[in-house]
């Protein structure tokens, strides 16, 4: 499988990365080289093989059913959460108008 400029433009749009014509044209052969190289995976017989989901066997834990079990991930830290926001306003994240 290979990609053309239109497909790359579609992927870039899905990934929310603005790309000009020149950049798209550079990406097409680069992505195709990589995709062509990974094609070799198709030659492996994977009948009956489960896709890996966890690399090291590990139980899924439940945390203690208490409020603010770990202070580092607890609530009540609005100012910390907003400290690095490019446009925090009135205790919220500011974004451009989305509703007319």
């Amino acid at each position, binding site marked *: *499988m290979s*990609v053309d400029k239109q*497909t*790359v433009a579609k*992927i*870039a*749009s*899905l*990934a*929310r*990365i*603005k*790309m000009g014509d020149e950049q798209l044209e550079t*990406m097409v052969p*680069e*992505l195709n*080289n*990589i*995709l062509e*190289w*990974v094609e*070799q*995976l*198709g030659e*492996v017989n*994977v009948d009956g*093989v*489960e*896709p*890996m*989901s*966890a*690399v*090291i066997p*590990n*139980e*899924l*834990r439940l*945390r203690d059913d208490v409020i603010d*079990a*770990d202070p*580092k*991930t607890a609530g009540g*830290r609005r100012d*910390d*959460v907003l*400290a*690095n*926001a*490019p*446009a925090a306003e009135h205790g919220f*994240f500011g*974004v*451009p*108008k*989305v509703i007319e």
Partner: protein
Amino acid sequence: MSTELTKLGVKAIRDGVRGGDFTAREVAESFNAAVAEAAALNAFIVTTPDHALDAADAADKARADGKELAAMAGVPIGMKDLFATKGVQTTAASHILEGFTPQYESTVSQNLWDAGAGMLGKLNLDQFAMGSSNETSFFGNVSSPWQKSGSNAAMSPGGSSGGSSSAVAARIAPAATGTDTGGSIRQPAAFTGICGIKPTYGRCSRWGVVAFASSLDQAGPMARSVEDCAIMLGAMAGFDPKDATSLKMDVPDWEAALNADLKGKKVGIPKEYTMDGTDSAILDSWEQGKAWLKDAGAQIVDISLPHTKYALPAYYIIAPAEASSNLARYDGVRYGLRDLPEGAGLQDMYAETRAAGFGDEVKRRILIGTYVLSAGFYDAYYTQAQKIRTLVAQDFEKAWAHCDVILAPTTPTASFPLGSLNDDPLTMYLNDVFAVPASLAGLPAMSVPATINSDGLPLGLQLVGKPFDEQMVLNAGLAIQQRSGFDHAPAKWW
């Protein structure tokens, strides 16, 4: 005195501070001065001399008060700029996180501070840890302290932990943290003549580490000896309830159990690791490594890891897929860069911000990841790659019936000049061909220096162990270290 102190590693500093041979403050001042002199390496994005001094003073005071000193008390280290450090800019070497100042400390860095270590600064890396040469950083290339004999061309320190490898090899830090997703600790360690170990997936908490590919990312130490790695890994590792994949297991005392006597142990030599394009000097060092481990009492056995050649292409589907998802968080809303052209809406803001904030390699991987996860291609690419990941892991499981540890080269070549492999991303990816299989299987793996080649550049050997058996990896590494007698240091040009 002060240049002598910068020649010391973790163990020597720890023991010297404990024994009163010198103060932790003298050590921190020496390394701070060495860091300040080494701007030409571009190993650090920011330096934090006060952090190192404060930790040193705390260690000296604890000693004066007659208290027992912690495992890393008085040891100043470099911190890869992928770990969130409270109040200190954390960028992942990207423009999109430039100026980001975490309000919290990553678990691994907190563990190190709790063990008495101090921070010399935040180390440069490939942007979002994506790269094998440290040429994708927004903050410029890192140079290796090593140069080819008779040349002053800037060489690659490897990547992505290239600031870490450069700083430790240049003796401007006794040790540094690294992270390894597909070889990012081992390959730079090999390129710069130092040691680096990636533990079993889950040993070190990922909480507060900027995510690249979550099922692969694992932190580990980089230092100049196996003993130093054992000490520092002990300080970094441990169960963390804030990371769902953290291993709920005790951390062994790896340092205390170090033992280079390999009698009764079997070392596997995978036949598939003899690939076209591998330097003959690398193959020679592999032979030498076998002889060293045999001398240490081990039995050498041939093994087969049949899916080795498929590991790297599978990795270049799985890692970008996870990255495309993880990096969706950089949206110009919550932290980092925002690029909002006049009159632009929300969607334009996302696209402009990400176009301005991500470097080319990061964009390339996000696009690949988005493509292989998209409707219609998901099964052909992503599911197929995850099945092959299972087969790669099964290869290792079968091998453990025949051996206790695996010996292989770390990289197919020695370091290369900066700029020499930039034309083709694929050629660059092949650097990690020997490192990626252990990453896909989540296994502990280490690179230790073996020798220097005819160009005067270091070569590394790789040891891969069973899950949770970092000890065997470290022990075999120690056996090699004792026999290689590797004590080459780069000539200072910076």
